[in-house]
Every structure is written in structure tokens, then in C-alpha cells.
């Protein structure tokens, strides 16, 4: 079953075409990575999937409603005047959930991302990785059917981003939302996704697609496995071709 899809979409900005034509669908429980050179429109494609932006031509379809879609941006994007708990409760507040219930669910979401005890902390008191976890908790608190991540770990150090990649996969395993995420890190794409979509230089079109075999969440030592290395090599090659094309 398809949770969200883009049908022959094109997006024009003032300076010309930014994306497309592009056709892409995200199936239920699927994890799709979008990789491509900078400026290829991969973040635009993600915003189309989220409904944050409309295509100039073509159609974006979502089976998941507004309340069932969640977005995580590159920066944690937290309100500095709100506690971690109040930041996580934000989407519930807007959906009209009673405050006591919103609070309980926010605390539970924070516990799921490993931040039990940090409920009252303000964003300024958190490290970059912790703030990103709060952002992730805010996305998960509504139990979305579609989770969109726009280069979510790009600003973090290698250790933290690997740990968060495993955390996202573990969280995915509990409720199996469809996930689409943008990254320019090939290893991260292959590690986290069941399908990697390579976009060409802007305006982005699909240059290649790769299915990634192997269990999700990834077992220990997956990065060293033969299949992982081979797929990562193939994705890198397709990416280089897309840049040169």
C-alpha cells in the first residue's frame, strides 16, 4: 500500500526548474533514502511529500493525513522558550489533545528516544545530539504513518549520527511508519534504507534506484558485510554519474 506518492511532479522556482519530472512512491513500512548532489531538489521532493509545498505541475498524493505526517529538519527546530516536554507536546496541542494526556505522551516519546529525565530541560541546555532526539520525539509523538527526515543528522558528529541511525531503525521497528529521508551520506543511506533513490544533478530526476537487502534494524557489523559495501559502491558510482551527466 502506498502512503505517499509524487506523480510526474515538477517544481519551478524563479531561477528555473528545481525538480522533476519525478515519479516516486513510498510504500507502507518502507524506508526510502533520497540521495543526490546539492541543489538537485531532494529537500524539495521531501517537502512535496509532506505537503509543505505544492508542485508546479504533476500531483502529490498522500494517504496519510496531516496529523499522520511528521517532519524532522536538519536543525532540531525547537522553540527555545519551551521545555523539551512542551516542544514534544506541540503537535498534540495543535491537535487538541487534553493537556494531561499530551504531557504523558510527550514524556513517553522522550523516554523512547532515551531522554527520560530531560523533560524539563530547555533546548539551550541540551547538546546537539540530545536536541535532535527531542526533535525526533516530537515527530514520533503523534505515531505518524509517514515520517520525513530532511538531512536530520547532517550537523552531528559521526558517532552521534551512527547511534541516532540505529535509534531511528529501532523506533521504526516498533510501529513501522513509512520513512523517507534525505541525506548526502551514501553509507547512511544504505545503512538506514530499504530502498535508495539516487537523483541526478538539478533539476533532479531519478538517476538510479537500489534495493538494500538485509534485516532492519541492522545487525551488528552490517557496515562490514559484503552486501553493504557492494551496494554503497554502486550508489556512489550512480551518484558520481548523476553529477557528471
Amino acid at each position: 500500500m502506498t502512503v505517499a506518492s509524487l506523480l510526474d511532479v515538477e517544481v519551478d522556482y524563479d531561477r528555473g526548474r528545481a525538480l522533476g519530472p519525478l515519479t516516486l512512491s513510498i510504500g507502507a513500512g518502507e524506508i526510502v533514502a533520497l540521495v543526490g548532489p546539492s541543489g538537485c531538489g531532494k529537500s524539495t521532493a521531501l517537502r512535496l511529500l509532506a505537503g509543505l509545498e505544492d508542485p508546479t505541475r504533476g500531483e502529490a498524493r498522500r494517504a496519510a493525513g496531516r496529523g499522520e505526517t511528521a517532519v524532522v529538519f536538519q536543525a532540531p527546530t525547537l522553540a527555545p522558550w519551551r521545555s523539551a516536554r512542551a516542544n514534544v507536546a506541540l503537535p498534540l496541542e495543535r491537535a487538541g489533545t487534553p493537556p494531561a494526556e499530551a504531557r504523558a505522551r510527550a514524556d513517553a516519546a522522550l523516554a523512547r528516544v532515551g531522554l527520560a529525565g530531560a523533560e524539563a530541560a530547555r533546548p539551550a541546555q541540551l547538546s546537539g545530539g540530545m536536541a535532535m532526539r527531542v526533535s525526533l520525539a516530537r515527530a514520533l509523538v503523534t505515531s505518524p504513518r509517514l515520517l520525513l527526515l530532511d538531512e536530520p543528522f547532517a550537523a552531528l558528529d559521526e558517532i552521534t549520527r551512527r547511534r541516532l541511525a540505529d535509534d531511528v531503525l529501532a523506533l521504526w521497528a516498533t510501529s513501522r511508519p513509512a520513512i523517507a529521508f534525505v541525506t548526502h551520506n551514501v553509507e547512511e543511506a544504505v545503512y538506514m534504507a530499504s530502498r535508495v533513490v539516487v537523483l541526478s544533478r538539478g533539476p533532479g530526476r531519478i538517476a538510479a534506484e537500489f534495493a538494500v537487502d538485509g534485516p532492519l534494524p541492522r545487525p551488528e557489523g552490517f557496515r562490514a558485510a559484503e552486501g553493504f559495501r557492494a551496494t554503497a559502491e554502486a550508489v556512489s558510482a550512480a551518484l558520481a554519474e548523476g553529477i557528471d551527466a
Partner: protein
Amino acid sequence: MSRIAPLLLVALLLAAWEIACRALQVPGYFLPAPSAVAVALAENLPTLAAAAGRTLSTAVLALVIASGVAVGLAVVTALSPLLDKAIRPLASVVQVTPVVAIAPLLLIWAGLDHPGRALVTLAVLVAFFPIFSGAVAGLRSADPDLERLFRLYGASRWQTVRRLRLPASVPFLLEGHKVGAGLALIGAVVAEFAAGSGKVQGLAWQMLDAGNKLQTDRMIAALVVLGVMGVALHAALEALERAGLRWWRGR
């Protein structure tokens, strides 16, 4: 040492002033010695303090009114792009018009019996702009991605203003009010000068009155009180801004 350096400089300047006045036998109506000013200050302290209180209450009332009007209008501009286009040029007109130039007109409108209203209005006009422009800038300072999230959550324009854009503007509002408070005090004094009447006997009137009677020492004493009041007001608002920012950021 660096903390007492400015005090040392003041003491040095006062000493030089005192010595120069005595040595050159400068007439007191032209330039009284600091000791004479101190005596005038002590003798007139109750009157001066009462006058300072009146000027300060004009300024504070003006600040409160300016704050309400400026933030209210800024929120209106945030809610409606059309009203934004309509209001902002007018706000700039208020900023560039010298308060002294409007004073006579406002004094006529306020009527002879209520010069206080004209004074407050004039001080409001001076304090308005920094608060307004701070609020406008602050309301635009929210993280654009957070605004996208609010749209995704289905928040209305008003909910976005109330829950996101207004709280995000707090640092800008604090700064705007700090500047606005200083200007409200200046505005109140300038307005008192422009009014010139004895109906509102604020600090400016004390200075005018002393000047008319050639009591230069009392004039300078009033100036000293005004300076102290200005510094105290500024310090109070700095402290308020720091505390406000700490509360806002949570540290």
C-alpha cells in the same frame, strides 16, 4: 580598578571645576561651583524629587501606552499583509517627526486644563517606534521550519502568532522596550519644555523656572536629578532584559 576608573574621572573633573570657579571667581549665576550645586540640591531635594516623580510617571505611563499600541499594531501587521503595507510607512512618519514640532498642536488639542495628557501623548510618540520596529522584527524572527511545522499541524495564522511568533519575539521586545523606556523619559522632558506651563511641574519645568530666576545652581541640580533618574531607569531595564532573556532561554 577599571570599575572605579569612571568615578575617579568624575571626582577629578569636579575638583577641577570647583578649583576653577574659586580661582577665577566665576559668578554663580553663570557657572556655580559643584559645592553650590550640592547645596542647592540638598535644599531643593523634596521639590526636585516630587518633580522627578511627576516626570517619571509621565514617562512610565507613556511607556505602557506605547508598548500596548506598538505591540498591538505589530501583531496586526503580522496577521494581515495588507495592513502591514498600510501601517508601516505611517509608523516611519511618526519616527521622523520631531516631537517638539507636534507639541504645540497636541497642547491645543489636550486643552489648557489637561496639559498632562499632551505630555504623555508626546512621550508615547517618541517611545513608540523602537518598540514597534522591535516587535515587527521579532515577529519575523521565528525559525521558518518551525512555521512550516505549525502549518503542518494545521495551526491558524492567529495560533501561529500567539504560540510561535509572539514568544519568538521576546528578545526583540525586551530590547525594544529598553530603548523605548529611555526615549519615553527624554520625550517626557522635551514635552515638558515644549509645554512650558506651570501646570505640570516636572523636572523640565523646575529647570525652566530656575533659569528664569537665574538660579543656575538649582538648574544644574535638577539636571543632576534627571541624569541620576535616567541612569537608574536604564540600569533597571538592563536588569529586566537580562532576567527576561534568562527566563526565555531557560538559563
